[in-house]
């Protein structure tokens, strides 16, 4: 089994501007990896390259075992993506949204019912699956969005600030679901500005001005930098160039 993510010297330039500067990282299958960084550090550009949505300027690597240049279409079908902004159809019920996403991913009709049932069970969606999505509290909507993102059983799930605005009880339940997915072998690649969530990750990387400035287990990084917690560790790593927008 190859690594979920394995990239070397990945670089993306837009004209004179280097958005991502030679980042290298590998993520094991089933790992929960936290991808942290300041606003504007280049996280989104890096994620778009990993998802096969943007070709790198240079560097090499694979995602889900597929080459990031030649096989980006295969990458798109092997990954799931959940954005912070609710991206489902507000007028459709949860069930209608899941059915719609199932057809987008071209899941055969016979399989789709089983897949949806499984997602409903895994994420405990049963109580609100028949309600219009816009009528749901934020936490439930995020669970539904997660459901749509995992319907095609992706090997790797990219989560971009999945818990923004969610209440703390939902946040805890949501993470329990993420752990469950990881246990079942899904690789999770998570961005978050909540440092407590970063501590839930097996490993994290911290990105600043296009580069990965630190990578490792959160507890070990805190110790290594002699800081009381991850928040202070993060701030100490990127504060040297504080006022550069």
């Amino acid at each position, binding site marked *: 089994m190859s690594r979920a993510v394995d990239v070397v010297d990945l670089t993306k330039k837009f004209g004179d501007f280097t958005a991502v500067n030679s980042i290298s990282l590998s993520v094991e299958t089933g790992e929960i990896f936290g991808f942290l960084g300041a606003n504007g550090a280049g996280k989104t550009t890096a994620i778009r390259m990993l998802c096969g949505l943007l070709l790198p300027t240079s560097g090499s690597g694979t995602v889900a075992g597929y080459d990031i240049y030649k096989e980006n279409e295969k990458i798109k079908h092997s990954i799931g993506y959940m954005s912070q902004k609710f991206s489902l159809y507000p007028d459709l019920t949860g069930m209608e949204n899941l059915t719609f996403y199932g057809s987008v991913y071209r899941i055969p009709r016979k399989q789709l019912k089983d897949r949806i049932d499984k997602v409903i069970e895994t994420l405990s969606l049963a109580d609100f699956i028949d309600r219009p999505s816009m009528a749901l509290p934020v936490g439930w909507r995020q669970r539904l969005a997660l459901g749509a993102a995992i319907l095609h059983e992706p090997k790797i799930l990219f989560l971009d600030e999945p818990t923004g605005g969610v209440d703390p009880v939902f946040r805890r339940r949501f993470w329990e679901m993420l752990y469950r997915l990881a246990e079942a072998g899904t690789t999770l690649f998570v961005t978050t500005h909540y440092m407590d969530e970063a501590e839930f990750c097996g490993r994290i990387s911290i990105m600043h001005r296009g580069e990965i400035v630190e990578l490792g287990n959160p507890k070990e990084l805190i110790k290594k930098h002699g800081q009381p917690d991850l928040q202070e560790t*993060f701030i100490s790593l990127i504060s040297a160039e504080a006022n550069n927008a």
Partner: protein
Amino acid sequence: MSDVIVEHIVKRYGDLTAVDDVSFSCDRGRIFALVGPDGAGKTSLFRSMCGLLDFAEGRVEIGGFDLVSNFTAVKDILGYMPQNFSLYPDLTVEENLRFYAGLFEINGKAFEEKREPLYAFSGLGSFRKRRAAKLSGGMKQKLALSCALIHDPKVLILDEPTTGVDPLSRRQFWQILRDLRDKGSCIIVSTPYMDEVELADSAAFMHRGRKLAEGTPKELTKLYDGAVYAVSVEPSYAMMERINALERISARRFGASVHVYTPSDMGEAELEGLLRQHDWQQAHIERISPELEDVFIQLMGD
């Protein structure tokens, strides 16, 4: 004296009560944080307090003036920063500031005098010719704050100014708030981040329209009833299910360890026995302090 007094505010949208009998006050030279998730009613409360929404019941007093009967006086002393980015993306940093100044009839030389200290604290001076759309998230928020400060308001109401902002930018933003406070401003700020409560002088938790608790950060932490333990064990979904099926304790994963929440009448020995019964033999147990989020969750009654 209290610069902001909010008494029994009720705001309804049809059948939905968005703000349900909320009261608090904040003195000058203090920061008051309102903490709660999306949908808690924070924005409805703030809009009511700024005279942007009519409310069904209650009263608001700002700087000694009644909001409803003396709105003109309130407007001059109140600065409001809405949650959504409200600047003009196509205008530069300076053009945005000039526009907001114009709304308060601060023009020409008066504007230039106001502008410089705002550039000094925000660090925006070297970006004065940059279009607002091209600023980073943290810088946008500093510009929005600068616009809210252009008329030297005594009272500042800031609706989630740090949501989606990275930890370093959040730290810098709060440093600015604390400097303003030390110069005598009264600051009311809402946030979804529990760690920002620690930076405020006092705070209230809000959930489903209601105020759950209010106090200094220390007072809020003390509200926790029970104990929290860090248990070093490699958790699995099945283990978590077993523990969470038990009536008196609950557990939450925390990376490679687990936090277990126990009622106040359960000692460490009893907890250890319980965990052993459920195959957590290898566990090393250490009592830890509850976090503000633990308090919030307990108060939510979930």
